[in-house]
């Protein structure tokens, strides 16, 4: 994050300093990933290092234009490819979204085998379902190999629907606002032990008094997000 002379902080993009790619065709849609969504995905993958985990990406902004991923719901860490619980979770998240003016705009997954971050058939299937309702849906794979402290690159690989298949998205169209701040917030969550607050849908089914919408954790994260920069 850097400030220009006017004292306004600029958001950092994943752009390499020497290149500037013009946002040409409308197919190359921009995707913005909020600190809240990123933090919870990261925490989810960290909470179950030996399992594949997945979840849904949500947006509270209106359809059209750039896709702003403002939140996520961590879903499963067991039996990702079995139907009943996945269907149940999708239905419940759908209902919750309509109650809270959010939309499901994507899907994320982290594979148990950290060295392989390619989308599994299960990931493609669910992403396809989401695409039926949202035509600029994204499929996000978490790259386990980049999840070490001090890694300067976001451990994320994004896919979008192009020509009837899921294609790798141009890194330059993916924006993580305030990347360094996001990293520091994630670190703070780990050092305060708050990362243990994260509840996914699987854990909720083990104990239904646990809240899969993660209200408590959301509040903690938003507290840490610097208020001066407005909404993340």
């Amino acid at each position, binding site marked *: 994050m850097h400030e220009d002379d006017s004292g306004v902080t600029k958001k950092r993009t994943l752009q390499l300093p020497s290149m500037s790619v013009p946002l040409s065709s409308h197919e190359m849609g921009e995707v913005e990933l909020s600190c809240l969504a990123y933090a919870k995905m990261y925490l989810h993958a960290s909470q179950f290092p030996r399992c594949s985990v997945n979840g849904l990406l949500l947006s509270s902004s209106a359809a059209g234009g750039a896709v702003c991923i403002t939140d996520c719901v961590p879903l499963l860490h067991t039996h990702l490819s*079995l139907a*009943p619980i996945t269907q*149940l979770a999708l239905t419940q998240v759908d*209902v919750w979204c309509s109650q809270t003016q959010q939309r499901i705009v994507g899907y994320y997954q982290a594979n148990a*085998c950290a060295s392989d971050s390619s989308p599994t058939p299960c990931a493609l299937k669910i992403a396809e379902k989401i695409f039926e309702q949202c035509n600029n849906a994204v499929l996000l794979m978490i790259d386990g190999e980049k999840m070490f402290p001090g890694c300067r690159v976001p451990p994320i690989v994004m896919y979008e629907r192009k020509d009837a298949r899921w294609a790798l998205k141009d890194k330059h169209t993916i924006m993580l606002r305030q990347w360094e701040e996001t990293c520091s917030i994630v670190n703070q969550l780990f050092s305060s032990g708050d990362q243990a607050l994260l509840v996914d849908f699987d854990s*909720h089914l083990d104990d239904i008094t646990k809240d899969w919408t993660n209200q408590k954790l959301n509040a903690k994260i938003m507290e840490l997000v610097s208020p001066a920069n407005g909404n993340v």
Partner: protein
Amino acid sequence: MSSISELYDVTWEEMRDKLRKWREENFRNSEQIVDVGEELINEHASKLGDDIWIIYEQVMIAALDCSRDDLAWSCLQELKRQFPDSHRVKRLAGMRLEALERYEDANKLYDSILQDDPTNTAARKRKISILRAQGKSSEAIRELNEYLEQFVGDQEAWHELSELYINEHDYAKAAFCLEELMMTNPHNHLYCEQYGEVKYTQGGLENLELARKYFAQALKLNNRNMRALFGLYMSASHVAASPKVSAKVKKDNVKYAAWAASQISRAYQMAGRGKKENKCSVKAVEEMLESMQITMS
């Protein structure tokens, strides 16, 4: 940084007993085991008597899980010193090599154990785990099948195989493994429920009815299994909604679904009592049940 005993106000005996409990129940809470075990070893080794060896083993494995190679190495050294020719210790050395991703070296170690003792199941299972870690699912499946031909009673292996098949979307074979497990563990509600999930995933009217029966069985064994409850609700609803069923079957399944829905409702009402943060999940379930009822009638 204060010690565990200070932080939680526990004695070394309580720490030792906790470790035993975790060992006996096969918990994989590795960070806790490392915290408690490391302190026990460092501060109270002399008091532990012969227990110390099994604690070294337990802490070593937990240390590998937490990338604490320093701790794993020192535990291993103590064990090697005490049991110089032990296969059990050799296997631990192999696990350390696995943790360091030195799979070839680990395999050599396990092969040398097997040369000495071809019936050593632990070494064979570690070799299969290596295949899994390397992403070689089909080879892992093949080896595990061969293993099970010889050691047909190994529950852990059957369950591992069912997981591998589920990952590979081979639901028929996963169902077979779960059938083996249910036969030998008829009181285990988790196997029934997993079997129901596999059948549901396979789809089709017959499988949905089977799924419903197994979800019901899981609930008989444990009426708090929420996955089984939801599974029963969903499978009964789908059967009732199918155009291929007779009026009687439809009526029966509507009844089952309604029962499940009321149980779900009740469970969520109880869970939501007094807890503000649960209101979201309670509301979501209520609406879902309502909307599904509308499509069924």
